[in-house]
Structures are given as C-alpha cells and as structure tokens.
C-alpha cells in the first residue's frame, strides 16, 4: 500500500461520533449520570461549530404544559403532520420533556431568553404552543460545559467504519482530515450523532452527508423510513435563500394566488403540496412562481431574528440577508432539495438493532419513528430540530451508561481493522479513476429535481434510480488526491447509498402520506400501508421488508 499514515489506538467507555448539539447533549448527560465513565467525542470538523444547530433560525419549540396535555399535541401531529406513522408514545415523551429540556439547555450555558419574572420569553403560535429563540453559540457553550465535565474531544477526525465483536458494538475506525492518521478506537458503547443525509445540495444547516448512516448500514443495523428523506424548501432563485412560510404567498405568472389551490387554512410549515403546485405551474405554462407578501412582516424569517436579543446569531443572519438582498432583484422562487434522510432505526432508548450502538438527533429522527411520515426536523414542526437532538441525547444517556458499565472493554478483531484500513484508503491508492464530484453530481441529478424526489411517480422513480445506479457503478473507481478529497469520496458513496434506498423504498410505498407524495398513488392507504419499510444490509445485499405500525396500542387512530 503506498498510503503512509500514522496509526493511533485509543480506548474509551463511550465513543460519540459527531459533536453537534445531539452528541454534546449525550456526552454531558452521560457524564451527569456516570462521571466515572470516559466519554470521547470525535468530530470530523470542529465540535461546537459543526452540526446544524448553529446555522439555523435558532428557534426552540415550546409547550405550555400547564395548559395542555402532551397527548393533545400527539393527536394533532398524527392527523396533520405525521400521517399516523409516528410512534405516539415517543412523541408524547418528547412533548412531556419540553420544559425540562429548556431548563437543561439553560443550565449548560445556552442563552434562552427569559422575562424579568423568570418565565421563558416565548412567542405564541397557538393556544398552548409557542416558540422561543436561542442564540447560535449554543453548541460552543455546550462544548465548554462538556469539557468541564471531563469529556474528551478530538476534532478533524472522520469516523468511517464500526467495529463489532460477537454481534455487539466494539468501537470504530476513522482518519484525520489533516494528516490521514488512522484511528482504531475500542469502545463499550458507540453513539452515532452524525446527522442526516442532505446530498450537498442545499447549503447551511443541511450539512449532513450521510456517512454515519452508511457506516451503520454497513455494520448491519436496520434502517427505517428511508423514503421520508426528501424535504424541500422554497428558495429565491437568485440567492437561493430559503423563504420560510413562503408557501403562503405563491402567485403564478397570471397573477393568481396559487397557494389557495392547496391550502385551505394556514399550516404549521411547508408541505409537499406546495412543491407540487410549483411543479404544475412550471409545466402547464403558468410559471414562474413569485411571492407577493401581504405585509413586510411576512417576508422570510427576518422578523424572528429581531424578536429576541441574540448577538451571535444576529451577525450571522445579517451577513446572509445583506449579501442575498444584493442579488435578489425579484421575488421568483423555486424549491430546493434539502433532503434530511434520517433513517437509523432505534428504540426509545435510541439503541439500534446492534447492542451497544446508539443513534441520536438527525441520524435517527425518522428511524425512531417519532415524527411519522415526514422528514427530519423541521419536518413540518418548526423548532423541533434542536430539541429533538436534545431529547434523543438525554433519552439515550441512561441506557448507554448502563451498557458501558455492564460490559467489559471488547477485544477488537484485527482483521476487521485491517479490512477497514484498506477500504478507507482505497481511493488514495488508485492510479486513475473518476472524482468524487463525478459521483456527487450524478446523485444530485437524481435527487434534486422535484418531480423525481418529492412529487414522485413510478416512471420517474425508475428514471431517477437509473441515474443513481450509474453513480453507484462509479463508486469503485473514485480516486482521491488528498485526505480532504478522501472524506468527500466516502461521503459520495454514502450519498449513493441513501439515494438508492430512497428510490427503492419510495417505489414500494404505493400511496401518499404526510410529506410523501406520489402522483400515481395520491391517496393515503391505511389498509395496506400503515407500515414501516425496513432496510438492512444482509451480506452486502440491500434487503427490504415491512413492519406493521402497532396502531392498535396507541390512542390516536385514523378515521375509518
């Protein structure tokens, strides 16, 4: 092998891949429960700056639990958002923990605005629901808290493969983006907090590249709800800036308010029907689609950024708004795929189907089944992104601590490590081949167009899948020129995997439900499709099966 890199061998009780808000929450929560455990975060960029929480709108969902029962929200969510595919008990637990989570974030250093009387300074969105701002330095504050509690952090190292011993998790391998150093990490428990799959299409908070999902898939854990990773948002066609709530103000070229074609009353967030309406306008000769706001306050998320004093985030938003305004000479919009496939299947303690392997935050949002038939946060549930990651991080802590305490440090199979080493550095060994960008471009061509990935039809799914399979054929030919490029090669391979799973599962689900929209099967089919699609790697083959949603044991049921 021509690649010459150093090797580092480490061991820890708990390894956390990913240092965003989910990984940091898990690390802090485990240390609070069991300070004697060694907890190591490995982050491929810089912990505190990576992840999604520090690049979004800085909004947390708030429930006034003195005025509402968590099950009221579960009922609303199942009917309006999740299409009865959600784990109702898990969602009720998420709502119940709302105020506790806000208190914990405040304790860990996040700046959550309060009124002079000590209550949270919320903006009501309904009789008992509200949102509250948080400054975007949330993850930096949490990193400091984690380090004070003794959590160790390694930056600029990408976790690539998971190690197993006797069917349980045994650790992971990875490499340094800076000098290629190969890491062999033995661990009693591993938490994947590696984010979702966004295919490098949208910028900003859609920064997940699915490499954690791919590692879990290769290790043989089950995935669930892979077909709900096709979130899209309206963006301005010139600056590509998202226009949150823009779906309420859509007009076609004839001046007709086409929002009225798909919305009877205002909904909590954009739905795939808005995407379909845009596609129809563009293909029936009444496009392009422009936004006409009914008041300056309606325009984008800018007013939210002024509601609370959040100096760190305000500078970030100011730059984004100012530079975009310089090119936004009109109000034309189109959808942009964000993605947010988040399919690692977990139970209520966030444990995957491999003992000792956990997945939290965007890596497992749909895999947990909590949201039902919608993509990862916001998933038509604004303010749930950061809190879902906090929820999952807290929810896994006790189980992870118990697992780490009751299992010895596993012996690692040297053969697995060498196999991983060879696989990880293979793109650097190739003398010739294609680039990672050749593969990514093809995946993006298959996932980006709305008529492929969002407004689906069997014929178009077949077309898109064919493009994905062209990309798949290129994967063994990818050649990397350095360690930065090497990471992109592994991410490209993960994008191919996610796209293939998406289209194969989307072809199976012959109905429309929640965000999932098929032109050829426009109705929700509760007779045949109150089911989850499960994907599993069996000896290198991608296998699909279904699992009945246990709707009979939950209180909220679809109307007969």
């Amino acid at each position: 092998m021509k690649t010459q890199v150093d090797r580092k061998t480490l061991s820890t009780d708990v390894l956390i891949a990913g240092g965003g808000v989910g990984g940091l929450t898990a690390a802090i929560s485990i240390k609070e429960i069991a300070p004697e455990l060694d907890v190591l975060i490995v982050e491929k960029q810089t912990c505190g700056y990576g992840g999604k929480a520090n690049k979004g709108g800085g909004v947390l969902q708030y429930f006034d639990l003195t005025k509402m029962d968590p099950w009221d929200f579960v009922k609303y969510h199942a009917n309006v958002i999740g299409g009865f595919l959600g784990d109702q008990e898990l969602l009720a637990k998420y709502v119940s923990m709302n105020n506790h989570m806000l208190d914990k974030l405040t304790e860990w250093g996040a700046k959550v605005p309060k009124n002079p009387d000590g209550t949270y300074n919320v903006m009501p969105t309904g009789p008992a629901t509200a949102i509250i701002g948080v400054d975007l330095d949330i993850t930096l504050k949490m990193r400091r808290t984690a380090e004070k509690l003794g959590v160790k952090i390694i930056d600029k190292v990408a976790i690539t493969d998971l190690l197993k011993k006797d069917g349980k998790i045994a650790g992971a391998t990875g490499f340094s983006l800076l000098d290629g150093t190969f890491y062999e990490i033995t661990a009693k428990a591993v938490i994947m907090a590696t984010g979702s799959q966004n295919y490098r299409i949208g910028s900003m908070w859609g920064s997940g590249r699915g490499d954690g999902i791919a590692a879990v898939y290769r290790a043989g854990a089950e995935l669930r709800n892979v077909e709900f990773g096709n979130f899209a948002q309206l963006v301005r066609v010139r600056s590509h800036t998202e226009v949150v709530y823009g779906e309420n103000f859509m007009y076609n070229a004839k001046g007709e308010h086409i929002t009225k074609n798909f919305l009877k009353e205002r909904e909590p967030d954009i739905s795939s029907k808005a995407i379909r309406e845009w596609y129809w306008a563009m293909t029936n000769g009444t496009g392009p689609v422009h936004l006409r706001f009914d008041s300056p306050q309606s325009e984008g998320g800018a007013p939210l950024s002024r509601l609370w004093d959040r100096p760190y985030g305000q500078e970030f938003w100011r730059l984004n708004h100012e530079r975009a305004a310089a090119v936004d000479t009109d109000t034309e919009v189109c959808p942009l795929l964000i993605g947010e496939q988040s399919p690692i299947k977990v139970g209520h303690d966030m444990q995957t189907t491999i003992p000792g392997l956990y997945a939290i935050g965007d890596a497992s949002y749909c895999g947990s089944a909590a949201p039902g038939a919608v993509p990862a946060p916001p998933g038509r549930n604004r303010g749930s992104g950061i809190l879902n990651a906090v929820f999952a991080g807290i929810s896994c802590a006790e189980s992870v601590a118990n697992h780490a305490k009751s299992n010895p440090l596993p012996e690692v199979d040297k053969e697995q490590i060498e196999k991983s080493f060879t696989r990880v550095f293979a793109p650097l060994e190739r003398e010739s081949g294609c680039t990672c960008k050749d593969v990514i471009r093809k995946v993006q061509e298959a996932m980006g167009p709305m008529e492929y990935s969002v407004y689906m039809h069997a014929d178009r799914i077949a077309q898109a899948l064919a493009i994905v399979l062209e990309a798949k054929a290129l994967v063994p030919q990818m050649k990397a020129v350095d360690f930065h490029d090497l990471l992109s090669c592994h991410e490209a391979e993960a994008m191919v995997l996610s796209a293939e799973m998406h289209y194969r599962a989307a072809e199976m689900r012959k109905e429309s439900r929640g965000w999932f929209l098929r032109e050829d099967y426009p109705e929700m089919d509760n007779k045949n499709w109150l089911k989850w699609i499960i994907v599993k790697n069996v000896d290198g083959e991608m296998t699909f099966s279904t699992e009945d949603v246990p709707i009979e044991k939950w209180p909220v049921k679809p109307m007969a």
Partner: protein
Amino acid sequence: MIDTKHEIVFHPEKCVGCGLCYKACFVDVIRWDEENKKPVFKYVEDCEHCFYCESVCKRGAIEVKPNYASERLLQHFDRYR
C-alpha cells in the same frame, strides 16, 4: 454544494491569528498555518457561502463574496418551459 465559485477575500494585515475562522468552517475549506498563525483558504470550491468565517472574525480580516449563480438549483427549468 460542489464546484462553487465563491470568493474569499483575506486581509492578512488585519488578522490576529485567533483561528476562529478555521474552526468555524464546517466544510473544511479553511486550513490553519500553524507556523504563521494564519488561515489557508485551501478548498474554496467547496465553500457554501455560510459567512461563518466572516461572522466570527471580529477584526474584519475576511470577506466572503458569494457567486450564487455558481450554485446549482438542479431543477429542469429548460424542460418545464
């Protein structure tokens, strides 16, 4: 995003070597020159115009000039119209 043509203008005379821009870059565009305590804008073609590096630089040493047209929206506009 890939193959973007955003421009990052760096004013070394204003840089105090704090390293925050390097840490803030979540797409590994910016590397750190430890010897000279200065950022190296090594993979600019991967820049996603988030402005984080500019935002955290309190000395005004960095300015991101976005080239939005270089970002692909991936919709089939030519087929629709």
